[in-house]
């Protein structure tokens, strides 16, 4: 296609047809663009949006600090949730029925109740358990902390978010582990690898391909769920902070826009990160992508014979 081959009398004439028109596609596109343009022009002029205030508060110290707090809440609780989720998923796949039931019960409770309710509960932790004792039960404790002093509202918010999220993560990880062919585990076992080595080196890396997309979803969802930590009550996150400011200025709409812009900014960064993670774990299986390590233009086959010729087509097809 496209090479100016010398005219071959046997070759038929290339097709030069008039392309089919799609008038309704064009109409729909124009309507959408016009509608969007109208909305933008209108919004730019509408006083209620109060764009000067948006600009003023977008990089306000209080707001950027709150944005950082929100980011910290997201990262800490997600890291804990992923680790705990892996543990719970593995627990559900063990042959031990007690361990299995404990993991199931955890899931039942933490997935079955609203995260808002759970956060309120964590906020009341100090009321339920006045002190945290370390030692042998029913004996004098070695160490004793006063709960309200030992755990800040920030920590309680992280714990609340993480424990709730872990129940979702455990299901995602479990799906990922189950997606790996049983032959992989057998091959690793037959090579004398231990269960832990098999998990870490063979099963988990392969399950990542299945785990990452929904986890990306969960991270973005977590970023937004942090706006509920006011239930703890922790009030230095992005949303609560911007509400507090608008309570002083009596002008909530620009503050909502400011908060939304920050959330959008973080979400966009997370999406870029997810793209690179997915690419990393598609090694060897990414059929839709030409293999970087293989020299261009060559594919499977012994380097000779019809197999190599046939397969050499695939990298080009990917680029096209």
């Amino acid at each position: 296609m496209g090479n100016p081959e010398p005219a071959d009398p046997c070759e038929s004439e290339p097709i030069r047809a008039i392309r089919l028109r799609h008038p309704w596609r064009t109409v729909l596109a124009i309507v959408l663009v016009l509608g969007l343009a109208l909305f933008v022009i209108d919004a730019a002029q509408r006083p209620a949006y109060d764009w000067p205030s948006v600009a003023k508060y977008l990089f306000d110290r209080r707001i950027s600090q709150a944005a950082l707090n929100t980011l910290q809440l997201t990262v800490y609780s997600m890291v804990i949730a992923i680790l705990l989720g892996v543990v719970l998923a593995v627990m559900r796949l063990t042959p031990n029925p007690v361990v299995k039931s404990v993991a199931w019960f955890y899931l039942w409770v933490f997935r079955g109740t609203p995260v808002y309710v759970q956060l309120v509960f964590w906020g009341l932790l100090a009321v339920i358990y006045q002190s945290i004792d370390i030692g042998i039960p029913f004996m004098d404790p070695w160490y004793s902390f006063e709960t309200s002093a030992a755990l800040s509202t920030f920590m309680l918010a992280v714990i609340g978010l993480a424990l709730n999220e872990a129940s979702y993560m455990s299901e995602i990880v479990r799906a990922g582990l189950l997606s790996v062919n049983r032959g992989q585990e057998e091959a690793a076992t037959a090579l004398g690898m231990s269960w832990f080595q098999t998990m870490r080196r063979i099963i988990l890396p392969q399950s990542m391909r299945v785990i990452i997309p929904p986890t990306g979803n969960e991270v973005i969802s977590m970023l937004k769920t942090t706006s509920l930590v006011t239930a703890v009550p922790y009030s230095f996150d992005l949303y609560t902070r911007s509400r507090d400011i608008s309570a002083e200025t009596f002008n909530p709409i620009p503050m909502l826009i400011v908060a939304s812009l920050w959330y959008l900014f973080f979400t966009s960064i997370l999406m870029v990160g997810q793209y690179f993670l997915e690419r990393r774990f598609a090694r060897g299986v990414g059929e839709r992508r030409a293999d970087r390590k293989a020299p261009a233009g060559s594919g499977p086959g012994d380097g000779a014979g019809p197999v190599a010729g046939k397969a050499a087509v695939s990298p080009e097809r990917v680029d096209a």
Partner: protein
Amino acid sequence: MVVADRVSKSFGTNQVLRSISLTVRRGEVMCMVGPSGSGKSTFLRCINHLEVLTAGRLSVDGDLIGYREANGKLYELHPREAARQRRDIGMVFQLFNLFPHMTALENVMEAPQRVKGQPKAQVEQRARDLLSRVGLADRCDYYPAHLSGGQQQRVAIARALAMEPKLMLFDEPTSALDPELVGEVLDVMKGLAESGITMIVVTHEMGFAREVADSLVFVDGGVVVETGRPGDVLSNPQHQRTQAFLSKVL
């Protein structure tokens, strides 16, 4: 090398192996043939304890597989000890089971490096040697998905050899291959057989069995029906079931 003494295996009420007894001597190449579902693969998987026996004893190189016997009692082995036994038994699967997220070289290096803890440089050198021994010196950096079936199976053989096993088990190594790719895998196996390693090969390749094997076992319905030199069994089967089976395959 391998001694099976009245080995039986059932899955629930389905008895797959019925009292199989056989011996494989050191350096011997034994081929197991028989119809699908006759229990050949299950027997092979019992040898490295991927399946647990329900009755009988199986030992490799004098070590009871999966158990320890003391004072007339059997003790189940700790997974760590079972893994140690498996190190010395290489296995090649019908569907290759290469690790898709690792290159051919990494596949071969994984076990010696992680299980035996050998230094990386040494493992890599050996892995390259093994890959060139199976004719894939130029495919070290390819991922399995970019290799043909025959090449993948040869990488799988190199991967098993990297652990320097005393015994190699082949579970229908060519059954999932295009006919034109079968030869390259059989050639590698033939080379291995000549190198003197003990091999048990479950296969449908009668030509290979006749040419390479020292002994041939015909299994049907979980029972050893006939055993002997491959030439004798293939050309002059004594048992009716063997005759019926061979008349269909040969």
